[in-house]
């Protein structure tokens, strides 16, 4: 099936998927045990009267039946209004506009780092399988996967910010700086991006390592060596090329994990991203914000999966693309 038809079909399918995720989100939110009014009031919930809290709920219309809320949200959405975030006290659009960029930068940069590093290291480890690099990398990968991200972050801050003083310990810009300067931000983001990347790398690294190790045993690799191709070409051009499939697959499904990791990294490094806001929105049953975030993530996940599916056919022409 041609790529264009696939894209077209996926675009069509995106509509019901988006509807399903947003509806699912409302349903999940309704099942959530959290009361938005109490979350909103915070500590004041204990001194606020029942009547006061009820009035808040009435103001937001969160006591309306679910279909009513969903319908209201949909009709507003069609008019380009994403609604008002109860937890952030801002229009949903401005929450997303102000924060999505940073999360995207963090996640995007970390993903790029993860991809490059795990492709390189995984392939080299597979090539030297059984050697100290392979064993070291694999042990490290499992250890990192088992380790709280928080430890990594704290260790990174202690070593690189406190002991060595190379990077700032947190924040988006220098605490005394005014305005946002690219260099300053880059300097501040190196540590969080690296921590996020390291924490997410094990899956990718181990999968690359395993499938490259598998394909290294294939006849075509042997044949490529027989043609006198240099080791690097054989490794990356033949072994890795045939082993890319599981790796590509992971990118799409690991986005949520990456975003989940970003939540932690954002909190630890005090970065103003979407991560913390999502948790807050979930706890506060902030439907409009949740729905919008879900829409964004759905769009990202759909695009990522479409791209990886297209990449499959490029990476492995034997795969016939469906859907």
């Amino acid at each position, binding site marked *: 099936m041609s790529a264009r038809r696939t894209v077209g079909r996926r675009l069509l399918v995106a509509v019901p998927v988006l509807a399903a995720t947003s509806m699912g989100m409302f349903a999940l939110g309704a099942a959530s*045990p*959290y*009361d938005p009014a*109490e979350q*909103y*009031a*915070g*500590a*004041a*919930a*204990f*001194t*606020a*009267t*029942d009547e*006061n*809290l009820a*009035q*808040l709920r009435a*103001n*937001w219309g969160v006591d309306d039946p679910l279909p009513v809320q969903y319908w209201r949200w949909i009709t507003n959405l069609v008019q380009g209004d994403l609604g*008002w975030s109860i*937890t*952030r*006290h*801002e*229009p949903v659009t401005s929450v997303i506009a*102000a*924060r999505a960029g940073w999360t995207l930068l963090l996640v995007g940069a970390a993903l790029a780092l993860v991809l490059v590093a795990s492709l390189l290291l995984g392939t080299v480890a597979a090539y030297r399988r059984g050697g100290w690099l392979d064993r070291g990398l694999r042990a490290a990968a499992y250890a990192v996967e088992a380790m709280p991200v*928080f430890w990594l*972050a*704290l260790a990174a*801050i*202690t070593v690189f*910010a*406190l002991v060595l*003083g190379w990077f*700032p*310990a*947190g*924040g*988006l810009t220098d*605490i*005394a700086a*005014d305005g946002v300067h690219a260099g300053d931000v880059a300097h501040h983001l190196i540590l969080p991006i690296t921590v996020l990347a390291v924490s997410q790398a094990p899956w990718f690294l181990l999968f690359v390592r395993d499938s490259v190790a598998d394909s290294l045993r294939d006849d075509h690799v042997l044949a490529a060596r027989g043609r006198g191709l240099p080791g690097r070409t054989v490794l990356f051009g033949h072994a890795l090329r045939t082993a890319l499939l599981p790796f590509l697959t992971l990118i799409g499904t690991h986005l949520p994990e990456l975003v989940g990791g970003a939540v932690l990294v*954002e*909190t*630890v*490094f*005090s*970065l*103003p*991203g979407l991560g*913390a*806001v999502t948790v807050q929105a979930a706890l506060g049953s902030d439907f409009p914000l949740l729905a919008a975030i879900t829409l964004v993530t759905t769009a990202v996940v759909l695009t990522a999966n479409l791209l990886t599916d297209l990449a499959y056919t490029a990476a492995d022409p034997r795969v016939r693309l469906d859907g």
Partner: protein
Amino acid sequence: QDSNGGTIVVATAGEPDTLNPVLNYGVDGASLIFDGLVARDGRNELTPALAAALPDVSADGRTVTVKLRDGVVFHDGTPFTSADVVFTYRAVLDPKVDSTLRSDLDMLDAVEAPDASTVVFRLRYAYAPFLQRLTLGIVPATALQGQDINKSGFNRKPIGTGPYQVESWTAGDRLVLTANDRYFAGKPANRRVVVAFVADDNIRAQRTRAGEFDAAELAPKLAAGLGTVTGFTVHKVPTADYRGVMLPFGNPVTGDLAVRKALNTGVDRKAMVDGVLGGAGEPAYSPIPPTSAFADATVTGKPGADTATATGLLDAVGWVPGADGIRVKGGQKAAFTIMYPASDSLRKELALAVTADAKKLGIQVTPEGLTWDAITPRMKTDALVMGWGSPYDPDFVSYKLFGSKFAGEGYFNLGLYKSAETDKALQDGRDQADPAKRKDAYSRFQRQLAADVPWVFLTYLQHTYVVRSTVKGVQPRVEAHEHDVANSLWWNLHTWTKG
């Protein structure tokens, strides 16, 4: 050369949701951006702020007249007038506005402005501590008039009269304030203030250690660790924030006075202060903190566990140990559940400490960590680790927490405690204007609570801060539960100087 001094950077965990006092920002004053009609000084005594003098209360206590200070202007240059005060309070009372302050102002009937520099509050009933409610920051009517306050851009970039105006607020990161040179109480000593929001304790400690902050709130043990680093001073600030176990009357075990009293004497408050709070606290015996003028010094106890007395109390009324060491009376086992909110680790630890102490008395306590929605339906029959407290007036909180009128309403009198004596004392405390009579009323209240033990009060917390030693002008005062940008150690930040 900057004669006004430089930048002060403070770090805190809690980030406000909005910067609008109407929507609960810094309602107890000291918000750096806004002023109330009155403010509190270093001893939490009321002083006039936007009011020219402390307000006048009529003889029947139902009319409060405030003369406003002259020549005050908002950050945007508009003059401050009585219309702004009226607007602010009416906004709070407006049901369309998402404010929880309304619950605290239910005595307020109307706000009027007879002239540009006078405001008159009319109350439904006499309410002695009403002036304490006038610390609410005043917002400019012109900036908000005709807008949906819930959704106004003002909430994120507000205009006030306070010592600092908002330069920028990057949610999740920092709030940057610049000095308001026209501040009525004089130019602030610092040009800029940066409030950094760092949610995680450990990270805040590390960043403080890295020298990013001039002052930061830290957990006691982390603060102690930084205290050994030269260049930092640790401040332990007393609060009115107590923790205790609410014992429901609807439960056959906790409903038994002997059990309640035994628990009250049998818990080891000192161990909790040292072990759980890392020394940053004091034992609590009543909801009125010892730092308050209303505290009754006779209502106290032994900081350590008095197991002998406690078991004596139980033995006396026939709670005898069964085969498994758990006491039994009339077929009823001395066993009950203590709930705690699962996400609150302090309350979890207190619940466990109480459990361990109760075990020594032969009472079996089962701790359960739950979400609020699971706690709520069980509050009438299961004990709960609770906390609250206000340093400003004993009527705040206690009236609703222990008054029988509020039994079972919201989170107020959860344990269905009913005592005519207590009701009377609380009512007197709010009706009487005379401080001496009020003090007497609250003495009665405290003694009655000590007799009925609807709660086992455990500890008062202390907030700990580290401040760079070169910073001068730090003046700790008794703090409330809520403290972040407003009402923290930096309540008087505009007078701090950095050497």
